[in-house]
């Protein structure tokens, strides 16, 4: 193992090292820590979570293992202070909630089906609305937008929602004042986390929306109501406006995903078993026979009994697609003249073309579906194949690819990989 910089590299030891701190990485870290392992998380930043609307979509969980994973996810979320639930926010019989699913509006104005949603969108479950047989004069939905948030066109959302769902809708766009600046939800969320500013907003919202809002069954707001104080803010708005209030999933940068990252990370650190090494990119792995002994970011060497690879897919920069891989997958390049096949020429000395494979040189495969989809080939329990590869490396999340990766995949594979990695530690000590 080579280290950049002078002197010997710093070495740290864990039971399990999780590479990546997106949804799959955090779930894997939590699962491993819950199984008693000391966990190190090595990651650049919050990965794909900055793009995540917060909704858990996918096929309804089948089998006990997937249900266990969902149950674990819901229970740990309660401890983090960010609750997830199924139909209408009901936690049902724990994991069972995800079987019924939910239908929520998104900022395109079209309904999105999901299995679980964060507490901030529960009041927007359209399936509850449909079943109550709402009349035109009985409620309806008021879509409120902020002038400063251009990616949330209240008029479009209200119009599309009416056409798609038959619910009566209206829209209103209010200004947050000069403090909001322009555009970024993250910045606006910062205002909502400021109690003094929020007092003023409550005042204004009562004045601007108060009488009107009460006539609606619910008010939909952009998902920017605070990175930390969202629960109390929603509660205060509900009381103030006299009707249900919820956040509508919108385009990135996405507050619901960042909330998730901050709260889960805080809980994991507070529990005392997990250490985060952030701003680090793993560039090397030290393997011996069928075991990986350590990984390194060039400055620090992380040793562990098992590793979870949760660096994300193509979208999350966990996998790079070189042109050769694309052309190989898309069509035989019969039109090329001999000796001109793309990538046919040797790379120049000292230059390594970027492989689709990540640091462990695992076998990847691509599928041609709606989009080209890439991922690491695995056998059961997140273990990469072929079997010649390192036996103590587990792959989780969108690194696995699949034709249509979704959040449930990250939760179930993260949970599986975290537990399997924790089990490795026991094997090692025995």
């Amino acid at each position: 193992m080579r280290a950049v910089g002078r002197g010997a590299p710093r070495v740290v030891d864990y039971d399990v090292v999780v590479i990546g701190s997106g949804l799959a990485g955090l779930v894997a870290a939590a699962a491993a820590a819950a199984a008693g392992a000391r966990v190190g998380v090595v990651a650049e930043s919050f990965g794909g979570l900055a793009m995540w609307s917060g909704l858990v979509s996918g096929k309804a969980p089948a089998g006990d293992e997937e249900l266990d994973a969902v149950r674990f996810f819901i229970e740990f979320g309660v401890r983090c202070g960010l609750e997830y639930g199924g139909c209408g926010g009901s936690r049902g019989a724990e994991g069972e909630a995800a079987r019924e699913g939910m239908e929520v509006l998104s900022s395109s104005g079209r309904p999105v089906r999901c299995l679980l949603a964060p507490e901030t969108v529960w009041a927007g479950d359209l399936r509850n609305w449909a079943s109550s047989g709402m009349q035109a004069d009985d409620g309806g939905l008021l879509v409120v937008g902020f002038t400063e948030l251009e990616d949330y066109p209240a008029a479009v959302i209200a119009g599309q929602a009416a056409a798609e769902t038959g619910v009566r809708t209206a829209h209103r766009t209010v200004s947050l004042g000069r403090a909001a600046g322009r555009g970024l939800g993250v910045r606006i969320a910062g205002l909502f986390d400021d109690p003094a500013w929020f007092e003023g907003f409550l005042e204004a919202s009562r004045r601007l929306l108060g009488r009107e809002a009460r006539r609606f069954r619910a008010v939909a707001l952009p998902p920017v109501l605070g990175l930390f104080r969202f629960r109390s803010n929603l509660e205060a708005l509900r009381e103030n406006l006299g009707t249900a209030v919820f956040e509508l999933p919108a385009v990135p940068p996405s507050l619901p995903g960042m909330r998730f990252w901050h709260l889960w990370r805080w809980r994991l650190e507070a529990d005392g078993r997990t250490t985060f090494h952030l701003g680090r990119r793993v560039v090397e792995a030290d393997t011996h026979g069928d075991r990986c002994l350590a990984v390194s970011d060039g400055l620090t060497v992380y040793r562990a009994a098992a590793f979870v690879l949760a660096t994300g897919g193509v979208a999350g920069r966990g996998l790079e697609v070189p042109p050769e891989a694309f052309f190989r997958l898309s069509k035989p390049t019969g039109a090329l003249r001999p000796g001109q096949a793309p990538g046919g020429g040797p790379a120049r000395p000292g230059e390594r073309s970027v492989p689709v494979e990540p640091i462990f040189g695992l076998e990847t495969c691509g599928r041609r579906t709606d989009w080209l989809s890439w991922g690491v080939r695995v056998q059961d329990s997140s273990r990469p194949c072929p079997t010649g590869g390192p036996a103590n490396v587990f792959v989780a999340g969108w690194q696995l690819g699949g034709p249509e990766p979704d959040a449930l995949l990250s939760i179930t594979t993260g949970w599986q990989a975290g537990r399997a990695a924790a089990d490795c530690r026991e094997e090692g000590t025995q």
Partner: protein
Amino acid sequence: MRRLAEGEAVFDRADVIVIGGGATGVGVLWDLVLRGFDVVLVEQAGLASGTSGAFHGLLHSGGRYAGTDPETAAGCLAENRILKSVARSFIRETGGLFVRLEEDPEDWEERWLEGCRRAGLSPVPVRRDEVLDLEPHLTSTVLKAYRVPDAAVDGFGLLWSLVWSSVAAGARVYLRARVTGFLTDEDGVRGVEVVGLGGTEERAAAVTEGRFPQAEPGEITAEVVVNATGPWAQETAALACPAAAASVPLGHDKGVMLIFNSRLVSHVVNRLRPPADGDILVPHGPVTILGTTSGNVPGPGRLLPEPEEVALLLCEGRALLPDIDRVPPLRAYAGVRPLLKEAVDHTDPGAGRGGGRGFLLVDHGETDGLPGLVTVLGGKFTTFRAMAAETGDLVCRLVGRPARCRTAEVGVPRLGSPVPRPPAAPVSRAPLTTGAERAAHGRERPDLADSLVCECEFVSSSRLVSLLDAGLALSDARRLCRLGMGGCQGIFCTQRLAGALFGAGWPGDTAQPRTDREAVRAETDAFRRGRLTGVAAVQWGGQARLSALAAALERLTFGRPGREGEEKVR
């Protein structure tokens, strides 16, 4: 072909009808307007929606053709100089470099220099170390380099400016209106039958205020009809009679271009070797276009860039720019060159670029006994003005009204400047739409709270809506203000586009709200689909990442079905 009844009511009448809204047709329109003719232009889709909207935006100096066809090279050089003087605001004088790499044949260099000399082009040798200073991304295997006056041209802006100037002088331009037949009388061709095309873009049936009738064909009469439909020239001539189609020696040659999301070179870079695939790089604003391939195709149908064509381009591009794999590709697109038949009749599939960049003027009165119909064929963007000038001369002879060509003297107004009224023009019949002029000026609608629709290209909602108000279809407005042409290719701006269209009460306040919604949805979906076709062939590196992100967002956040999902619904 239908015989015109005596005293038949017509929708419009003019001296000359030009069919086709590409560079050739618009060039002829401008030429004839400056000669004082009353002209109508009819285009089946949007302005520059065919070949002129899918070239690499290179204003040739002639260097490209010097080795194979010094005559064409000389023509290019002359036009290069004229356009640089009359249409300066649409041309970026990047200058061009011809570079010979180690693997390129040496004898070609001598032949090329000889051709340049014959064409009147004097390439300036550049020292090898100086080349790498000028273009640091270029391969270090450059042996020799020469400087030529190549340039980058904004074809779309140039054509719109010519159209607006012509409309200001009284011409009428009907977009999305298709010619379905010719009208004749005893003297020959006397006009055309036209139907406006429906669909969501119906609103933009005309740039002038007169809308084209939808259901019934409308008649436009004139003394001469000019067929300037490029790759559709044969089809159009066939509407008159089969003999007319036979007199149009047209071949179709497909070219694919690849855009990179970075300005990789600051000059137009050509390889000094016999013209082949992927050996031109043209810088345009923040992007670079790598072109082109060449291959016979049967017709002008909807052509998509195929992955193997893109692979070929990339492979050749590496020879010039070794690090090109690391640059995020933006999209690939395909166009059809309408070439004179003899140029593509060779067995060599690459012969399309070998020669034959000349053009042909067919007077169907002489060839097929159809006086009053003229077809202008072939050529290239760089020489469109010269083609128009010769066509104008022929029209003058046919009508018997001599007038001098003035396109080499009269400046083309930049978009946003007051449109000068050519003194020779007749009194305007159809008033200029003030909306179009205002939009061209970039003035914005004051009643709208302004916001940014497209962050990549800085398009504000009021700019977009003012263009739509001026009667442009979304697809025209999109090209003109470059909406969605940047890095995200519509992933983030589609949503804001819908917001802007809704916010403006588009399309029109009289429509029922429900129609509004469906129209906006149809337009935004079409917008996004249009962007998707261009990125499908470049799914590697940064574009693969964006596409994966877009697919995830559309499925998981927006509830939009993927393309697979749509097929299932159908």
